Every structure is written in structure tokens, then in C-alpha cells.
């Protein structure tokens, strides 16, 4: 029989969705930034206005996104640090698989943070609705 692990690393407590959590937060942040600025410019402010309210909003979104990614990072980190035998992710044990999913989640969190930061850089440099 294939050993499915026990405690936190049992298969029933796992899914691949956690991997997608951090990039989903990036995607949500991205779409929100794009949609709110588009509606702001097309429906409210017009093409000749200051962008300050939107830049502050994007700052707010970014803060929220960072908190979200931080939470996911925490979960991933706990999984990664699951403490049995040596800390490998390469072997055929449920613990290794558990750590692997945790580690991949962490890496995706890092990438998502950078990508979110890049998105918010737009608000740093662009000041008008032109």
C-alpha cells in the first residue's frame, strides 16, 4: 500500500489549490488596479486629471495583497518546516511531499510579492490620467 502519511501530512489534508493562492492574490490585485483605474478615468475623472486618489487606492490594494500573501507564506512556511528526518523535498514520503508543497508555495509567494510590487510601481511613476 502507498503510505499516505499521518497528522498534518495526510493526503486528505492536502490539495494543490494552496499553490495557486499567492498568484491568485497577485491576479486579484492586478485586475482590481486595472479595473478601478479604468473606471475612474473613463467614468469619473476624465483624461486630464490628477491620479492621486487612484494612486492611494492602489497603495491600499497593495497593502492588502501583501497581507494576504504573507498569510499564505506563513502556511507554506509551516509546511516546509515540518520537522522529521532530514529536510528533503525529493523523497517518497508524505512528509517530503508535504514540505515540497510548502516550499513551492513559499517560492510562489516570493514571486507574487515581486509581481505585485511591480504593479504598484506604476502608481509611483505615473501621476496623471494621460
Amino acid at each position, binding site marked *: 500500500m502507498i503510505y499516505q502519511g499521518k497528522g498534518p501530512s495526510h493526503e486528505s489534508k492536502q490539495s494543490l489549490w494552496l499553490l495557486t493562492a499567492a498568484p491568485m492574490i497577485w491576479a486579484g490585485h492586478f485586475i482590481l488596479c486595472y479595473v478601478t483605474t479604468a473606471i475612474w478615468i473613463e467614468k469619473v475623472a476624465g483624461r486630464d486629471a490628477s491620479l492621486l486618489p487612484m494612486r492611494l487606492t492602489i497603495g491600499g490594494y497593495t497593502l492588502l495583497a501583501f497581507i494576504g500573501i504573507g498569510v499564505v507564506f506563513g502556511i507554506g512556511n509551516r509546511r516546509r518546516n515540518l520537522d522529521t528526518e532530514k529536510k528533503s523535498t525529493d523523497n517518497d514520503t508524505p512528509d517530503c511531499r508535504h514540505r515540497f508543497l510548502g516550499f513551492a508555495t513559499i517560492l510562489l509567494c*516570493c514571486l507574487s510579492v515581486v509581481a505585485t510590487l511591480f504593479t504598484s510601481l506604476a502608481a509611483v511613476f505615473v501621476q496623471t490620467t*494621460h
Partner: protein
Amino acid sequence: MPDEPSSQFTHFFGKLEPKQKYGQTLALAPIALAVLSGCHGPQSALNPAGKGSAPIVDLTVWLTIGAAIVWFSVIGFAVYAIRLNPSAHNRRRARRLIIGGGAVVPTIVLTVMLSYGLSMMPEQLAPAPDGSQRIHVSGEQWWWRFEYELPSGEFVETANEIWLPLDEPVEFLLNSPDVIHSFWIPSLGRKLDMLPGTETRLALHPLKEGYYRGVCAEFCGESHSLMAFDVKVVPRRDFDAWLERQRSDAVIRSLEQEGARTFTRNGCGACHTVRGTFADGSIGPDLTHFGSRESIGAGLFKNRKDNLEGWLRKTDTLKPGVNMPHYAMLSNAEIGAIADYLLSLK
């Protein structure tokens, strides 16, 4: 003679003097190849003559240098690993290469690049200040309609050639009555699409006197390749004089009366306007000052009598899909008379 296709036409660039190259402050070493590979002409984005285009050339140079460094270092690593020292190395050290070379360094480099790029945005997108010369441009399959807006609110229409005042901002208001085109004068600055139903606005600021060429950059149908226009950047005084001339009606010399009549008799006026005559069509280009233009057929041929006669005889072969019918059924004398007439409209 007329039956020989295109050999009778001197293509516009064939007669063109190579333009003086713009002395860039940065070393142009990486794109020296571009310069060597041919006299890059009046249509080159690497030959900047505008406030918008010069910083993009700097950006291009930096990016090219950076890209070359990155490429050579990565390939250097690979050659080392595969050819020079193919024995096995420490796995842990190799993993560190992923973190450093694959993640950390690129992130830093990209952050710097992105910031550089974004910091250029405000200047690139800034609208022209109030009081700038406004030019309404309409991209049509496959030629350009230009309307200069005068301070009085009056419009002066011309086609396929614009003059711009040196070192002054100009605002282009772009639109299209048919398909999507894209307005691009590479030497002066960025391109911008011309969308049916929406007006887009582009500010350019020429910095160097000279002759440049604009083209349509968005695929717009059969003769997309044959949709160019001439741009002349001149001192304000010359610009004003030119605009005043363009504003005036056509003056028809007695010598060309016969040509004018042939023009009218064959219905040319249904599509073309020659202000001051009965010709007032608005489907095709305004011909009021046709003789003053550099080229015919939207940047296709140098504006000379032999080219013009050929153009009238086989318009549809020279510009596939064009709306204008050919006039091959006219006699040589009639064609000649029309050509003389049009060339006299200075």
C-alpha cells in the same frame, strides 16, 4: 514608355540624399551595425530628431548593452559547464546559482529597468500645451488627410505632406473613417493608433530641421505598405509662409487652362478638391497645392511629370485596391495636360 511597368518611375528614395546622422551623446557602438548596414534614412527611429524619440534611443542603447552583457554571461556559463569543464560540480553550489543568477540578480535588474521605463512615461504621454499648433489627421485607405487648425478656428486641408515648426510642440488629433491605422514618424517620436470612432491625441516636438518620413504602422489592408507621408521641419518663419500658401486658393495660370478643363471633364473634381475651382470632392486627397508636394500617391513616387503621368495611367496597378480608377483611356496629350495642370498648383 507607358507600357513598361514601374521602370519609368524613379522611386522616391532612389533620388534621396542620405541624411546626416544624428550625433548621439552615447556611444552608438552596439547599433553601429545599424548605421553600417545602410544609410538609415529619414524613416529611422535611430535617427532621432524629436523630444520624444531621443530618450527612446538612449533607452535602446542601454537596453542593448545590458542585453548583450546578460547574453554573453549566460552563454559563457553554459559553455563553461558543457565544453570547458564538463565534469560534475557540487550540487549545492549549483542550487545557489539558481537563487542568485536565476532569481535575485534578474529581479534587481528588472526592477531598475522597469523603473527607468516607467519614469519616462509622463514625458512620453504629456499632452501638448495649450496654444500648440493642432493638426487633425485622418488615416484613410491608403493616404493621409491633414487639417491644420488655425487660431481663428479655420481649417486648412492638405494631404500626404506636413510641415512642422522647428522646436515647437505640435498636437496631432488622430482618427480614421475606415479601418485602424497607426500614425508614425519614427524620427520624431512614438506611434499612435488611429481608431475609427475614437480620437487619439499625440504630441510631438521636433528638434532638428530636415526632411522626415511618416508611415502607417498598423496593417490596414491591401496597400498598407504604400501609405507614407512626407514631413518637413522648418523654422517658424518658413512654416508660417508655407501655411499661408496652403490656405490660399489655387491660382490657375492661363497656360494650364486646357489641363484644368480636362481635369474637370473627366470628373476628377467629384473626388478631389482644388480650392478656387469647381472641383470640390472630398473622397480623395485635396489637390489645391499639389505641385508644391514632394511626392505623389502617399509617399510612393517623387512628384515629377513622368511619374504623375504613369500614376494617372495605371493607378490601380501601382497601388492595388485603391479607390481611384486609372485613366489609361485618355490620350497622351490629355494625360500630359492634366499632369501639367496639377504640377502647376504650387
